[in-house]
């Protein structure tokens, strides 16, 4: 092969590559695929608040289905081993059984995986400390987090652009004209749409009693009255102040006295304090839902209580309060409740009414890859 021939050959090769690239770009065109999204109608149980949906991300059938695939697809993790559903497991109330989340390659996180049940109703910040405000925003963090999925977002987007099925689905959900319009905003929107349909609790025994389809047993009624302080003749368990129906959550940042510290700055996880920078917010965490707790274990932000019995015993004991009142930001509703074993039993009987597993047979919430 002489030198001149070599140059010509190189030129031809380059021309070929260039032409191919051009062709790939043409292939990236999606505009020929029909874009005709269908509105997704949320089924919100009777008597529940309306869910606020951002105007720029209305729920569509196509968007939800795309979000569902993404949620269950390990493609969004560096080594293709972990999906959102690895930690947020539907059968475990969209949480998992680990006290502290375990991410890619067994990397240990810092907090307990939160349940995503009814997450779309949370309007006062997300995560245990409220560090992010919207589901759209929160949907991207785990992908990049080194102890979760550890995949740079640019790489995630590239994988989706290179993926024929996803390209079509992004077109159908968001009407993009070309694969390179797939970006992190649309990825976040799709994941958020899926998470907004994770609704459960409407078919719990408790809701059936509220609708008059069932009645409380004596023990359950006693437990409910303790839970809500509804009856002067039974012990107040105070729970409803922070876990009120229908969502069994008030979404506020509170120190419920689980961590024995003598000074605010001693909290091993500052929680809300790290977000606001205020000393008096140290050790405050967001209240969470009690719906479907029976599907979960290892409760609280650090997974410290393995069972609900442990949780209830904590509240009954009055928790930990620093001796120095200046260092004390434990909520005043945390104090020794003095429930006896019969009262504790009745409270548990009530708490067991909050389970509703019908969401597991909702086809839109199932793993699409199975």
């Amino acid at each position, binding site marked *: 092969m002489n030198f001149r021939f070599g140059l010509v050959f190189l030129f031809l090769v380059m021309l070929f590559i260039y032409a191919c690239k051009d062709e790939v770009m043409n292939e990236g065109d999606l505009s020929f695929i029909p874009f005709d999204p269908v509105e997704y109608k949320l089924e919100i149980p009777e008597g529940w608040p*309306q869910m606020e949906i951002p105007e720029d991300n209305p729920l569509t059938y196509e968007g939800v289905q795309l979000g569902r695939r993404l949620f269950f697809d390990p493609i969004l993790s560096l080594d293709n081993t972990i999906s959102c559903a690895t930690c947020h497991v539907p059968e475990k109330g969209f949480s998992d059984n680990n006290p502290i989340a375990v991410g890619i390659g067994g990397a240990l996180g810092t907090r307990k995986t939160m349940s995503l049940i009814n997450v779309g109703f949370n309007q006062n910040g997300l995560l245990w400390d409220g560090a992010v405000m919207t589901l759209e925003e929160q949907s991207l963090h785990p992908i990049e987090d080194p102890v979760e999925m550890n995949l740079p977002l640019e790489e995630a987007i590239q994988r989706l652009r290179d993926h024929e099925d996803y390209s079509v689905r992004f077109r159908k959900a968001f009407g993009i004209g070309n694969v390179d319009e797939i970006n992190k905003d649309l990825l976040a929107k799709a994941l958020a749409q899926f998470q907004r349909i994770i609704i459960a609790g409407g078919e719990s025994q408790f809701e059936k009693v509220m609708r008059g389809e069932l009645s409380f047993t004596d023990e359950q009624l006693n437990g409910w009255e303790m839970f809500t302080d509804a009856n002067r003749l039974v012990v107040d368990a105070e729970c409803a102040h922070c876990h*009120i129906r229908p969502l069994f959550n008030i979404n506020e940042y509170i120190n419920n006295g689980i961590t024995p510290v003598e000074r605010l700055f001693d909290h091993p996880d500052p929680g809300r304090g790290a977000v606001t920078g205020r000393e008096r917010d140290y050790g405050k965490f967001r209240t969470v839902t009690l719906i479907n707790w029976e599907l979960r274990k290892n409760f609280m932000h650090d997974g410290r209580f393995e069972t609900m019995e442990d949780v209830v015993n904590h509240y009954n004991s009055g928790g930990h309060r620093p001796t120095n009142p200046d260092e004390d930001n434990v909520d005043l509703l945390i104090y020794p409740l003095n429930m006896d074993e019969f009262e504790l039993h009745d409270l548990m009987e009530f708490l067991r009414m909050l389970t509703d597993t019908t969401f597991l047979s909702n086809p839109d919430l199932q793993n699409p890859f199975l």
Partner: protein
Amino acid sequence: MNKLHFFILLPLFLFVFSACGDDDDNGTPTGTLEIFFEPIYGEDRGLISPTTNFSYASGNDIRVIRSDMYLGNISLGTASATTVLSEIEYVSLGEPKMDESTGLTDKFLVLNNVPAGSYSFFEFGIGVPPELNSKTPSDFSSSHPLARGGNYWDAWDSYIFAKLEGRLDVNDDGLFSQNFIYHSGQDELYRILRANIPLTISEGGTTRLKIVIDHEKLLINEDGEFVDIEETPIDHSAGDLALVRFIADNYGRAFSLELLSQ
């Protein structure tokens, strides 16, 4: 600065012409009303705080940690009409911070699109007005103040109108071992306060008011009777409203108003 006191209004004599809703787009000139809150305790006007002691009528020291309330139908009025600026707001006055340079706290409400004009009184209710109190959180979408589930009390069929919580140093050992929690609710405890104050809202301008709330006066009435905190540290159950009614009846004395600028 002139300090004005509120008087409690009998709801019977109220004729409210609601102006909220019929917006700015009809061209009416509007301005802004800013309301700053100064939650204090006692004569010295110290700001309430979870780490500041005040002396309570029982002889013990007291700390006020939480003071939350709904404000209903915040209005400005003239002899002939009342303009509702906001049907409902929720304010949390606990742990306030004072900006020393302005003398204002970080607890405030900003009401925009207030029709410009001269008014002769300022008025609001403490609690949730009956027409809204007949609703429940599920009637509102999740970020509305009345969607706050923690502020609805099933056993009362009512919102919790106001929460007053703190600690009393019952043993005088600095440990403040007695918590108190007083939550009020139910229509009969809704109180409307009105202050007769000449006030102007100018087009594009901002008028500033300050509401001072003396928490000592919430717990002690004009005859010197006071809440026996040790005896009744918690009051939030249905069926016994005596203690929270005592507090609600003190609102008129505990709240005062100052016009800062207009």
